[in-house]
């Protein structure tokens, strides 16, 4: 029983935290009426997904940090004069890093567009609460 808990529950703690954050952001996006709160929930959702991907790319050998390094080749001569990767050094998987690096910047750009829409909604209706916007829309 203890073994099952350690292997199945504790060893995947990043996934559980990622799920909790994802659902937190999802709840904020649905249930909160304020548009800024919705955007904050969107950001939390996005970071949770990025956390999931970065967890997939990490490698864990043991100990404190344990011999795994960042995906930057250490101790090279300039401009790569036939340097080979050192034996026995384990690098983290760089593919999720590349994907998520662009995802963060594009996420910030889409957040900016969403904020511009919020400003336009405030200029039109005088409020950023969802239900008041619907009331004014139906009243007019």
């Amino acid at each position, binding site marked *: 029983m203890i073994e099952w808990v350690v292997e199945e529950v504790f060893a995947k703690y990043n996934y559980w935290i990622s799920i909790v954050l994802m659902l937190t952001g999802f709840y904020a996006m649905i249930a909160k009426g304020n548009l800024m709160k919705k955007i904050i929930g969107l950001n939390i959702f996005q970071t949770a997904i990025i956390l999931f991907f970065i967890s997939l790319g990490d490698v864990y050998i043991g100990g404190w940090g344990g011999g795994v390094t960042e995906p930057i080749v250490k101790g090279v001569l300039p*401009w790569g004069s036939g340097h080979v990767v050192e034996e026995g050094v384990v690098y983290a998987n760089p593919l999720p890093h590349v994907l998520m690096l662009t995802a963060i910047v594009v996420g910030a750009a889409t957040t900016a567009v969403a904020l511009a829409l919020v400003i336009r909604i405030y200029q039109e209706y005088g409020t950023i609460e969802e239900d008041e916007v619907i009331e004014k829309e139906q009243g007019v």
Partner: protein
Amino acid sequence: MKKKPDVIINTIARLMIPFIQMYALYVMVGTEGAGGGFQGGVVFAASFVLFVTAFGITKGRSRLPESWNTALSSLGLYFYAGIGILCIILSLGVANYLNYGALPLAELIDRAMTRGLMISFVVEVGIAITVMAVFTSIFFDLAWKPEEDKGGEQ
């Protein structure tokens, strides 16, 4: 609303902004450490955010005019797309789009070195210019209140 200029904030901003911009240049050019075009561009845009916070938005707009901003935001993208087309043209149609190793520079020096040079001095700088101009433009547009604007308001 008109705020009185604060001496401490103005002096600290004057001191900080050149160092922030130099750090942004250090981050965006060169591939030895962590960093790249996206981060360098955003840090460069952060220096303009600090300028606007300290000195007000009209003065910030006069430092970086809209015409410059519009030109720079497409210039970086042209850098990036242009080096890709240049790879096709200069290799006489042999290489693919964005294949930096096929540039004629690779016959003079190493092919890997050519690719590294193209990445660090053209591609990353292009990305950084676009990101800097777009983020600055977005911040100015979001922060500019129309009642502060004097000319041309409909």
